[in-house]
């Protein structure tokens, strides 16, 4: 193993543990990544030294907590290259970020308007729109995909009309690893004055995100999928939209003045942050960003790319296997099926061999239906995974095949 990789791995306490008597091999990074000790410690240090509620207190701990919290906002802003801190809304996760837009943005629309999402979306970028469409009399249209798991841009162009008010699209598919051509989609959408929401849950830990370059209108992601804590998410939104949108949740923080005669709302970003935020988790997110930047997000991407190519080649060689998703220009999520072996059976046995991977529908049932399957096995890599782990995994997969033969 390369010394740099050893350095990275040594920061993750959980990677030393055994499960079922075997060394843990964690290939379920698409679901959630593991946390480096810096992130874990940032959170516990916060509780040991600084814990306090933010924004409203005059006392030392509150002031220091507020500074740290707002500095975290600044880190996120810089990390994704947003124009202003006002464009960074803290939520509890990608799902909430999308729900926020789905509820608040659609309140500006008229009955009969339509929203487009793609066939390959995670349920979190489908169901919020279904709920909003039902509530407001909007139509939900589906951008279709090709059999190799790419977005069908022609079909997309064909379903856009002058009642189309938003396009929601995953940056990277959590099943196929497809990297969608966001800039192209944004250009197409903007030429029709349609804003684009990008579900960045699967991209933020793997690609350099530059929202100014992507020019998307909204970008949603979760800290827990990028080495950060659970319970923290981000919604990036262009100020021009966020200014127009009504508040989502009501409560403390998001108001300017409250009275029973009429309440006025706070400025951005606070207008969308009701209630006590997850200060500790947000500070830990800025530590996760620091972790990624120390390695270099491009380096992470490069290593993952090597792992992915290696695994794809070896899996193909193995035979009797169906691979889903594109072969090139893809992310480090690999979905596959062993012929005649149920993913649940294989996953259960691989777990006994210490390998954590995901089996099932991956919260993407419409995509499963498209391929006519009930689920896949999925491995997904992060900065700390190694070729050696893939080799062990492949060996184990061979054993599983033998067991079921």
């Amino acid at each position, binding site marked *: 193993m390369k010394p740099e990789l050893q350095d990275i791995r040594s920061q993750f306490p959980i990677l030393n543990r055994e499960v*079922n008597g075997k060394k843990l091999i964690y290939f379920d990074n698409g679901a959630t990544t593991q946390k480096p000790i810096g992130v874990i410690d940032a959170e516990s240090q916060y509780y040991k030294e600084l814990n306090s509620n933010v924004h409203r207190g005059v006392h030392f701990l509150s002031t220091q907590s507020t500074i740290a919290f707002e500095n975290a906002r600044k880190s996120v802003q810089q990390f994704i290259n947003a124009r202003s801190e006002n464009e960074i809304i803290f939520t509890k996760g990608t799902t909430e970020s999308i729900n926020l837009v789905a509820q608040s943005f659609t309140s500006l629309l008229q009955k009969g308007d339509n929203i487009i999402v793609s066939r390959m979306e995670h349920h979190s970028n489908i169901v919020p729109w279904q709920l909003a469409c039902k509530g407001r009399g909007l139509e939900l249209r589906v951008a279709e995909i090709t059999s190799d798991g790419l977005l069908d841009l022609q079909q997309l162009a064909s379903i856009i009309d002058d009642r189309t008010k938003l396009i929601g699209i995953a940056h990277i598919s959590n099943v196929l690893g497809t990297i969608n051509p966001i800039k192209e989609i944004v250009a197409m959408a903007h030429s029709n004055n349609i804003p684009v929401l990008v579900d960045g849950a699967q991209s933020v830990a793997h690609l350099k995100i530059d929202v100014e370059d992507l020019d998307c209108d909204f970008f949603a992601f979760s800290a827990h999928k990028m080495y950060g804590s659970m319970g923290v998410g981000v919604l990036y939104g262009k100020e021009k939209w966020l200014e127009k949108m009504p508040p989502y949740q009501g409560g403390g923080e998001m108001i300017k003045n409250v009275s029973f005669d009429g309440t006025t709302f706070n400025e951005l970003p606070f207008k969308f942050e009701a209630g006590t935020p997850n200060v500790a988790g947000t500070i830990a997110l800025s530590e996760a960003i620091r972790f990624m930047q120390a390695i270099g997000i491009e380096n992470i991407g490069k290593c993952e790319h090597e792992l992915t190519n290696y695994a794809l080649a070896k899996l193909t060689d193995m035979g009797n296997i169906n691979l889903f998703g594109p072969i090139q220009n893809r992310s480090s999520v690999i979905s596959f099926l062993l012929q005649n072996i*149920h*993913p*649940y*059976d294989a996953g*259960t*046995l691989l777990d*006994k061999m210490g390998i954590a991977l995901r*089996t*099932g*529908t991956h919260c993407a049932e419409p995509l499963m239906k498209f391929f006519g399957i*009930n*689920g896949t096995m999925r491995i997904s890599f992060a900065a700390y995974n190694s070729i050696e782990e893939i080799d062990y995994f492949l060996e184990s997969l061979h054993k599983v095949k033998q*067991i*079921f033969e």
Partner: protein
Amino acid sequence: MTNIKERSDEIAANFSVFDDWLDKYNYIIEIGKSLPVFEDAKKSPSNLISGCQSQVWITAEYRDGQIFFAGDSDALITKGIASILIQVLSGASPNEIINCDMSFIDRIGLREHLSPTRANGLNGMIKQMKLYAIAFKSKHETII
């Protein structure tokens, strides 16, 4: 005739000879193969246990105070587990099933399948089998 306790003790005893997880799972898969054929017609949505990753179907019949289960799954491990439950619970009375102690699952080392994870079907199967028992009890036994 044996009762639930005896049948589950017997299964637990069979499992106790394995100290290797692989042997245990091979045995589970074998047990699954012993299940009588389950016609495709019965693989209907109403017989499907919802929420698990594998598809598993369970049906039940009431005959003379006893319930007899049948089932199938598209995953072999799940099928094996279904088979174990069917072997243990089939032939018991509704009351026995409603009140039965499922701790043998722990003893045969399948506790992990009892987790509240919805991915696996064990909890769902047990719940469904007990629901059948409740339904049959209210249908037949209050009449008798």
